């Protein structure tokens, strides 16, 4: 049987393991993409979010076989981009990172939102982040950070 072929952070790769493995585990264990965090393994918390063909997914609820032929982006790849730099700066400006465990998922959720809607309202930002739990911040700082990135990063999205 053919292997699972996909593009991970811009590089083509083949995965030889079971198609039923969780993408979360495959990416963390086989590919060492440890920016992806496991918060619940049940699709609730968003800490394991990745972009599949540019669309936000919780990688705990994606079987490895489902990404055959797709392009997967994790923070390991995304952090090399100018968009990330804008988000990083905006998150720093308002101290939107506390324990940091939700942050990788938040960053990718913010990217997914801004790539569809470069100038979101506060409500739209909250909707865009609504599948990513944060227990530290109360969300205000993160919402402000995304809003700030949208303003400062004008043209990037």
């Amino acid at each position: 049987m053919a292997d699972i072929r996909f593009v991970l952070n811009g590089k083509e790769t083949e995965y030889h393991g079971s198609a039923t493995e969780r993408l979360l585990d495959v990416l963390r264990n086989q590919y060492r993409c440890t920016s992806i965090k496991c918060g619940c393994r049940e699709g609730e918390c968003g800490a394991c979010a990745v972009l599949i063909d540019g669309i936000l997914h919780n990688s705990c609820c994606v079987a490895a076989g489902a990404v055959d032929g797709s392009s997967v982006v994790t923070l390991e790849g995304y952090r090399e981009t100018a968009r990330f730099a804008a988000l990083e700066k905006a998150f720093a400006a308002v101290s939107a990172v506390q324990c940091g465990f939700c942050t990788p998922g938040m960053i990718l959720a913010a990217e997914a939102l801004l790539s569809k809607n470069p100038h979101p309202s506060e409500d739209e930002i909250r909707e865009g982040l609504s599948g990513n739990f944060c227990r530290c911040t109360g969300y205000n700082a993160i919402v402000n950070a995304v809003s700030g990135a949208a303003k400062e990063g004008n043209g990037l999205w």
Partner: protein
Amino acid sequence: MVNGYTASSLKEALTILAETNAVPYAGGTDLMLENRPGVKYLFLKKIPELRSITADERYIRIGAAVTFTEALASPLVPPLMKEAVSHIAAPAIRNAGTFGGNIGNGSDKADTVVVEFAADAKARIVSKEKERIADIDKVFLSRKHLGLSDGELIAEILLPRKGLERYAYTKVGGRQSQAVSFVSFAGVFGLENGRITNAAAAFGAAGDAVQRYRDIEKSLIGKTPDEAKKVKADYLRAYEERILVNQSRVGPEYQRIVCLNLLNDFLSRFGV
């Protein structure tokens, strides 16, 4: 691939289904919660026939592997369904979750299924040998019970093109997003020449079932809203006796009261 099959056409998928014990995998959001050891998946994402939203004279046809996010972007999907879909979970789940999967996982809390019950939706079911169109309540029987035979796959959900303009939908959950429904309600109202033609009311998440009581609905059909008002108390009492409730995330009394409140509000909105 190991423990998985990818099909690029419906025909190929049905052959695999007929010949193996693979489990159809659409969005994965429910399947992966359990991710049963030893399971093999049949990945449906690359099958064009299952991924389109089209319309014919009578129906809006939503492919079983269409995601909730895709449905929200489609001008064809009726507002009632969009309203329900927009309240499902959060973006990442809506990006993955599908219409077929929402029926196929057999959850009484599936928000689109409640709408399908109220809308008199149908499903196109296909297998290697044949295909058939079935009413939604013959496909989704009750929690974890589907009216599907081995080798059968849900291909499309058929929503009527007309008659869904007057509706009410409420999802009641414990928070503003990422909420499993405590109770959900979908109602569709029809009025022609001053007389009620439809008063479909479907309840989800209460009593482990999706519920609709056509016999009670009938008591309003053919009446003017004013006439219907007069029998409304009896009508509500009939529901109170019939609605199934249980102890789940919320208790039976809560489920009953909220179902009746939403039903009452639905009728009131349309002058009953």
